């Protein structure tokens, strides 16, 4: 197949992915809408941190605390119990055996198909241009949408996070739509500055981190949208757990992406750090997510406040990925917007 044909095929796959994501979104939404309402907290389930479960039943007067903070020896520690050996994966959002669960399963299948189409779009684009397929804004946004869906689907393999389905699907579909409508760039070579093996390292890490952080951002928005008490939306505990876990994995990856970027800059631009707008905003994003991780362990910041910090950080991430290229000129401006 010629390069033009492959490029055309890639564009078709993107459209197919958008459609599949939209159908999957509808399926997930049906499951959520006709499923059972849930309380904002799930009682009687082991919570992440021992300290987190304020609704403790038992106080153990033993220094069993694992020293997570300074000077925890001999502290009185509260433990949630009594519980059998069952860890806390988020519960399935719908009762099994009903039609709504069927809608959810179909949606999951459609999401996997969309994921495959998205992957095929990236691979065929890469074959068409004979380089890593994230050399401009269009390819980058397509890849981030793919990463976000990947993060969702692979989490779903181990823990049920189907309640996030409609929201991840709509985000991915919007991302792809934005890429096609606003950032579309025809297949072609990149400028010499981008012609380096570092693109495989630096940009890939940025894409993986962004995908995970998008998942966390979606969960964070739902956390704020969801009121207290019963709701058809997933419980706050579940949302916060998903967001935190995604960020815990994404933060080292993002750190690595920034450092790999510095190493590349050292090869290409003559300095490893020069306060280019993109560098500034990736630093701001990094600091903001660091603030989130610290907020999680600061008394009085857990929950709502930490989620707001997380969303501010997510805003910085989005501005860094897209806004900096659109609004501010700098060394990263070759991304063909």
């Amino acid at each position, binding site marked *: 197949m010629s390069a033009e044909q492959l490029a055309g095929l890639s564009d078709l796959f993107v459209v197919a992915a958008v459609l599949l994501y939209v159908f999957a979104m509808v399926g997930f939404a049906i499951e959520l809408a006709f499923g059972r309402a849930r309380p904002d907290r799930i009682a009687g389930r*082991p919570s*992440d*941190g021992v300290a987190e479960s304020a609704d403790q039943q038992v106080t*153990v007067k*033993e220094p*069993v605390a*694992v*020293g*997570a903070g300074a000077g925890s*020896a001999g502290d009185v520690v509260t*433990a*949630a*119990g*009594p*519980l*059998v*050996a069952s*860890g*806390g*994966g988020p519960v399935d959002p719908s009762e099994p055996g009903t039609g709504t669960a069927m809608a959810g399963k179909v949606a999951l299948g459609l999401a996997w198909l969309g994921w495959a189409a998205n992957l095929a779009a990236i691979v065929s684009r890469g074959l068409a241009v004979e380089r890593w397929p994230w050399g401009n804004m269009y390819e980058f946004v397509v890849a981030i949408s793919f990463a976000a869906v990947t993060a969702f689907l692979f989490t779903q393999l181990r*823990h049920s996070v189907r309640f996030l389905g409609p929201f991840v699907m709509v985000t991915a579909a919007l991302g792809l739509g934005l890429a096609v409508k606003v950032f579309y760039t*025809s297949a*072609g*070579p990149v*400028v*010499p500055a981008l*012609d380096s093996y*570092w693109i495989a390292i630096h940009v890939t890490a940025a894409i993986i981190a962004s995908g995970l952080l998008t998942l966390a951002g979606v969960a964070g928005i739902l956390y704020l949208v969801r009121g207290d008490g019963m709701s058809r939306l997933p419980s706050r505990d579940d949302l916060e*757990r998903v967001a*935190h*876990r995604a960020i*815990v994995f994404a933060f*080292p990856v993002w*750190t*690595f992406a920034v*450092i790999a970027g*510095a190493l590349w800059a*050292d*090869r290409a*631009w*003559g*300095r*490893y750090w*020069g*306060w*280019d*707008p993109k560098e*500034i*905003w990736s*630093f*701001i994003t990094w*600091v*903001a997510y*660091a*603030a989130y991780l*610290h*907020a999680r*362990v*600061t008394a009085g*910041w857990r929950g709502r406040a930490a989620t707001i910090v997380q969303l501010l950080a997510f805003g910085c991430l989005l501005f860094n990925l897209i806004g900096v290229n659109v609004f501010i000129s700098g060394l990263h401006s070759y991304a063909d917007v």
Partner: protein
Amino acid sequence: MSVQELEKEQAPKHVQLGLTGWLRWAWRTLTSMKTALILLFLLALGSVPGSLVPQRGVDPDKVALLYQQNPTLAEWYDRFQLFEVFSSTWYAAVYLLLFTSLIGCIIPRTATYLRELRRKPPAAPKNLSRLPHFASFESGLTASEAAWRLRKRRFRVVTGDGWVSAEKGYLRETGNLLFHIALLGILFSVGFGSLYGYRGNVLVVEGDGFANTVAAYDRFIPGNQVSAESLEPFSFQLSDLKVAYQLTGEKRGQALDYTARLKVNDHPGSPARDYDLKVNSPLEVDGTQLYLIGNGYAPVFKITDGKGQVAYEGPVPCLIEDKATMTSGCVVKVPDAQPSQLGFLLRFLPTSVPLTDGTYASAFPADVNPQVEILGAFSGDLGVNSGKPQSVYTLAEPEVLRKLKRLFMGSNTPKPLAVGQSVDLPDGLGKLEFTGVKKWITLQTSYDPGRMPALVAAGTAVIAIMLSLLIRRRRVFVRVKEGGTVDVGGLTRTEGNVAGFHEEFAEIVKVLSAGDKDVR
């Protein structure tokens, strides 16, 4: 911090309990997590203007432009050091406070951690079923056997009368502390590099050379501790620059590769070696890096004055006006011309094509059909000898320009010149001949002794943050009761990893409940 500590030490001598108390309060507030959080926010917030306001170190031309366009605003920006955010006092105040707070947090935590490392896991609680993870089974497992099996899984184990207490995951706090220390390392490396390193920019035309001395640079930015003698004495000659362009398709004209061929002498007198300098592969000479940053055209002119003498001969580097077609603007000043000085404003078109309206434009960035268009030619005093600083890229100040005699201007300009063509100036004032095309490159040299330390610190930070975030501290307790019932309890205080521990706990229970033969 040192001042504070000093005062802290002196404080008791003043017998002012209030002062010590106040200082203690200040120190505690500074090192609290809430203050650290606020400082983190301030650091993020303070970085924002650095991306919105042009920075002197990154784009000095834009700063100058702002001063021209809006002097009042520029004054105010300057008052708040917004043109150099990242070296401003207020930004330094934020990050120094943050790092002080960090040190104040690391030191006590390290002490606690070291104590904890030496301490043994605590005794098993009486009732293990109250722990978040619990399992019970019947088997002939003894406490010592359980301890052995847990030790095999690299737990730190303490045994007692019918119980075993085991703990694992100490590397989490190691990672946490190491990560924060690595951040300090990065800060010190960057600081060290900016004190003892330097950067310089220089433009070199094909055929010309460069020797690494302060005077040879167009722009030289040394660190505080850099002297002229600390520059590596290398030199090179630029043989030529080869640029490859995309020839077909929608990306026609996009640059694909730049290769500058250099002959490098690492030391004076050492044999020359060939080096192909490319965008992503800098030249390294004894710790100094040399980077290919930009390129352009330098048409070669021969200018004969009114007396028939050759007043100028050589290449003239032109500034790129349009990157896609490499249309460039050139200024030629001939102060040696007789009877009066000559000046030219020219436009260089690498691939000149005539347009329907009679003008010319460049259709491609490579020099396929290079032509030079004369926009204006002047004679008279250019003010070169006035003593005022001059830019080689502007002909003259507007007030000087007004007084010059216009030889060519507007409608009476001749057709563009191809290589080898020349044009006679009116009134017998001389001749301009376009003799050839050369290219220029801009290079950046940089010497940064903080580079490697920064890399080591950054690498450490990545590994440490992974340890800190992905490892969990967990405890497993075993109680062997009379009658062969074995209780196993487990807990972790690491947030966000409960599901993972659930699986590990199940695995441990499986290993413990297995018969003698199944244990590996």
